[in-house]
């Protein structure tokens, strides 16, 4: 029964992620600025990660969990890169962080190649490296949360508060998964299910925000008089 619930949440999260890719692609489609590609790519990776976990619920395999962990870390790094490169252009310390981001992506790509390359390495991940990847993902989520909160505080509006809340839920989810992994139990415990639910809620907030932006009727429309 628990497996069915887990599977359902994973599949729903994967669907939400792939639906979000469509919305997240729009800023890039309009501006053609490469920095905005991080969000659609990130959500696509997150969707792939969720899909792998869903398959993993039906057919438990440690390889799927490892690949899912890696793709999820990639996802959050790509998303954080978009926020990093969208920040105030007047900041000076950009080069160091740009190099850091580049190195993280190269390191993760190397790790991915090593994991799937051959039988001599195989799909094995050192437990401490696994914890490091989870912590890296948590760091990226925290960075995005701080960035969106700062953006909200500069121009406080209720509509801009939801995304930081969404990131907080993703952070809670990631933290729960760290606790679950550190437990080394790998059973379907409260931390695991709580993490899944928190991630689903976070993704639900993102899709709601996207829906409100693109489909909800606004006060002011093209060629209409603005409301007083």
């Amino acid at each position, binding site marked *: 029964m628990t497996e069915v619930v887990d599977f359902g949440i994973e599949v729903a999260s994967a669907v939400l992620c792939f639906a979000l890719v469509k*919305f997240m692609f729009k800023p890039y489609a309009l501006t053609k600025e490469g920095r905005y590609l991080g969000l659609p790519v990130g959500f696509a990776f997150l969707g792939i990660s969720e899909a792998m976990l869903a398959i993993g619920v039906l057919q438990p395999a440690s390889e799927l969990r490892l690949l899912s962990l890696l793709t999820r870390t990639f996802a959050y790094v790509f998303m954080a890169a978009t926020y990093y490169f969208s920040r105030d252009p007047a900041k000076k310390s950009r080069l160091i962080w740009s190099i850091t981001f580049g190195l993280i992506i190269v390191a993760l790509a190397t790790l991915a190649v090593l994991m799937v390359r051959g039988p001599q390495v195989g799909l094995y991940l050192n437990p401490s490296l696994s914890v490091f990847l989870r912590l890296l993902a948590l760091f990226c989520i925290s960075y995005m949360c701080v960035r969106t909160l700062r953006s909200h505080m500069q*121009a406080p509006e209720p509509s801009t508060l939801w995304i*930081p809340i969404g990131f907080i839920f993703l952070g809670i989810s990631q933290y729960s998964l760290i606790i679950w992994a550190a437990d080394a139990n790998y059973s379907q415990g409260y931390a695991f299910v709580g993490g899944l639910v928190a991630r689903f809620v976070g993704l639900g907030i993102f899709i709601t925000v996207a829906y409100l932006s693109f489909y909800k009727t606004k006060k002011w429309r093209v*060629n209409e*008089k*603005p409301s007083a």
Partner: protein
Amino acid sequence: MRNLQRRDRVKIYGDLLSILNAEANSDKIVLTKVQVQINVPFDRLKSYISELKELGLIENEYSLKLTEKGKQFLREYEKVLDFMKRMGLIYGKQKKIHENDPTGLCP
């Protein structure tokens, strides 16, 4: 040093269409007024207007009305900007380009 954000062509097009849309009910659009609002040199404003005409987004250089395609572009532009603002991708306080811009998103 002033903290000026670079605007790309799409943003300038969006801003220009937004201003022209706000002035749609005026009898005549004064280009120098538009130039002050959009904050670009006059010769560049003229070239942007020509480009928008070539793209079929506006018509008639002297009354400057948005075409259906232009209105559609502006609607999509506003939605995406609103989404980017909600996502926290637009950094800092945005200056309202004209009084009729309740979104306050125009850079």
